[in-house]
């Protein structure tokens, strides 16, 4: 599926050379080390990688929600509709959050305030960003609950979070995130804690609502299947950097970074005959305070050469929209093509 968004001249969001670190007893540890990507109007971008790869910290940096201390956004630009979010005041940033960019987190229980009613929590951003209050706000809140598929919405406005199931709470989070019609919705592992049938409900809902309103969607997940189904393009992250990026078809059908290949070979797949053994990536992710020299993936990589130890590969274009940071990209994608036939 290609995004049927209007072709506008500049991307909605441009992240340029973003660097975020955390101060720890062991010194300053990089979490995101020079990440650049765009999100176009109305498109769905996936951000995929394992724990600690920097995908969540990237999103938090965009929203300026990295806890400081210990987190520091060291450098970079986050241009949202041309404005650098890292340079504006806290007050201006507050009007971007919610009205410009909405965000949904993994834990619906800890993202909602347990002592306030659902209605109060949905009407709050409506008052702050749109100036709605009283009956008008309440009417809109009920409309939003209907929109995310919560029946009997007027009565449910008086409920507290604990009266809702996990799936319903995540629906409320979506209602809040979309209440002020943001141009970008960031979903950070938003369905990870949910059961598969509920996960499917929530993802379909999110995709339908954003495509109806032309909202761009950034899905952050470790689940390769979710990205394959919903994302137009994706970035694969490892140890704080984007290692491969392209359209879903390109990255899944012709992966060119050894890490992407390793991820795809690690998951048992329902779309293929059952196999006797998986072919996982060896070893574990490196300690971010102690990254190996050259390419950070080198110690786990089957294609690594002497060159990988001394020099760090940068993202290079290998196809129309596909970029890869690997010296051996060509032989990686060729060998994959042979193996998967």
């Amino acid at each position, binding site marked *: 599926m290609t995004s049927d968004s209007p072709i506008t001249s500049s991307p909605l969001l441009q992240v340029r050379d973003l660097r975020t670190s955390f101060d720890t007893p062991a010194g300053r540890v990089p979490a995101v080390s020079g990440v650049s990507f765009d999100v176009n109007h109305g498109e769905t971008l996936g951000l995929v990688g394992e724990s600690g790869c920097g995908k969540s910290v990237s999103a938090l940096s965009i929203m300026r929600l990295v806890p400081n201390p210990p987190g520091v956004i060291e450098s970079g630009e986050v241009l949202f509709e041309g404005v650098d979010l890292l340079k504006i005041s806290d007050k201006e940033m507050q009007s971007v959050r919610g009205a410009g960019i909405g965000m949904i987190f993994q834990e619906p229980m800890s993202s909602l305030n347990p002592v306030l009613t659902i209605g109060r929590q949905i009407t709050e951003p409506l008052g702050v960003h749109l100036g709605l209050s009283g009956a008008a706000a309440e009417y809109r809140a009920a409309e939003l609950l209907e929109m995310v598929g919560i029946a009997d919405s007027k009565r449910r406005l008086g409920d507290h979070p604990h009266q809702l199931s996990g799936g319903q709470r995540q629906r409320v989070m979506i209602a809040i995130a979309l209440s002020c019609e943001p141009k970008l919705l960031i979903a950070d592992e938003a369905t990870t804690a949910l059961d*598969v*049938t509920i996960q*499917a409900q929530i993802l379909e809902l999110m995709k339908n609502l954003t495509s109806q309103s032309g909202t761009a969607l950034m899905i952050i997940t470790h689940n390769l299947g979710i990205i394959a189904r919903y994302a137009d393009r994706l970035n694969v992250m490892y140890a704080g950097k984007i290692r491969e990026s392209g359209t879903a078809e390109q990255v899944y*059908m012709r992966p060119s970074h050894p890490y992407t290949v390793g991820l795809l070979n690690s998951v*048992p*797949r329902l779309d293929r005959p*059952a196999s006797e053994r998986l072919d996982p990536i060896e070893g574990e992710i490196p300690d971010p305070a102690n990254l190996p020299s050259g390419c950070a993936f080198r110690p786990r990589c089957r294609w690594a050469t002497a060159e990988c130890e001394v020099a760090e590969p940068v993202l290079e274009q290998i196809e129309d929209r596909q970029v890869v940071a690997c010296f051996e990209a060509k032989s990686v994608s060729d060998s994959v093509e042979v193996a998967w036939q």
Partner: protein
Amino acid sequence: MTISPTNPNQLSVRDTVDSSSGPLLSVRDLKVHFPLKRGFIVQREVARVRAVDGVSFDIYPGETLGLVGESGSGKTTTAKAVIQLNTPGEGSVKFEGQELVGLSNSAMRPVRRKMGMVFQDPYGSLNPRMRAGDIVGEPLKVHGLADSKEDYRAQVASLLTTVGLSPAMAERYPNEFSGGQRQRLGVARAIAARPSLLILDESVSALDVSIQAQVLNLLQDLQDQYNLAYLFIAHDLSVVRHISHRVAVMYLGKIVETADSKDLYERPLHPYTQALLSAIPTPNPIHERSRERIILRGDLPSPLAPPPGCGFSTRCPIATEACSQTVPELKTLAENQQAACLLAQSV
């Protein structure tokens, strides 16, 4: 079935499982109900959570039974009832021919030696104040399986090697291990007393995919090496298909479908199994975008007030009037395949 020599994946799993000697574990009509009580001095039972409500299955030596279902379906309660960890259930749990329901704690102890358990949380399930070697070696001490100090150390070292850790790591504390390594420690502890059955309760769910694949391979190697049987509980159906010989799908405390793994995934007969399978996105954009998904309405009903008739009828896309009146029994619809649905047809 024809076996093509070029593709070992097509081998029937039954070929590798020895079913001649009878089941290792045989569970019949297992029920675990938790009464909900109210009242200050005189407590009255006001409701009853039927966490597990009449579950039956067999596991043969060297076989993996996958138990899948959503949260609250009764998977973990079933596992705990097998190893007699919760309030005694009703029904029968026979392990190596011995009835376990009603056994005293002291009588259970030698039986537990033969059942290992690996839990989901690699952080919460290891004592942070014990060294890795002592964590792995504790079952050897408890069951008196080491002859001497040297023997104990040698066994611990060999266990660590078996799960892919270095024997030198025996001196370290759990916080010095990564999540994947901790789960390897959990596996080493579970196999220390040389059990014949391992209960794996969401044991790989919390791991990153590359580490998950490593642990799955380890589990398969151990099964081949020691002829271990697994009760593999997970909500991830692609992982379950990969590791299981047979699969049982649970919903609201009941098994709604059970079949050989291959058949269940190729030809699910219960509408819940069909919906579960269709809900799983596969890492293949072309396949994904052409695929119709069955999106179930609503949530799992509360086990406190299950719907009358078929428990799935409130969310079922094909339910009829009769489904809300009659409780469907598991019936055999194909060879080695049973489903509890009034509308499922035999094939």
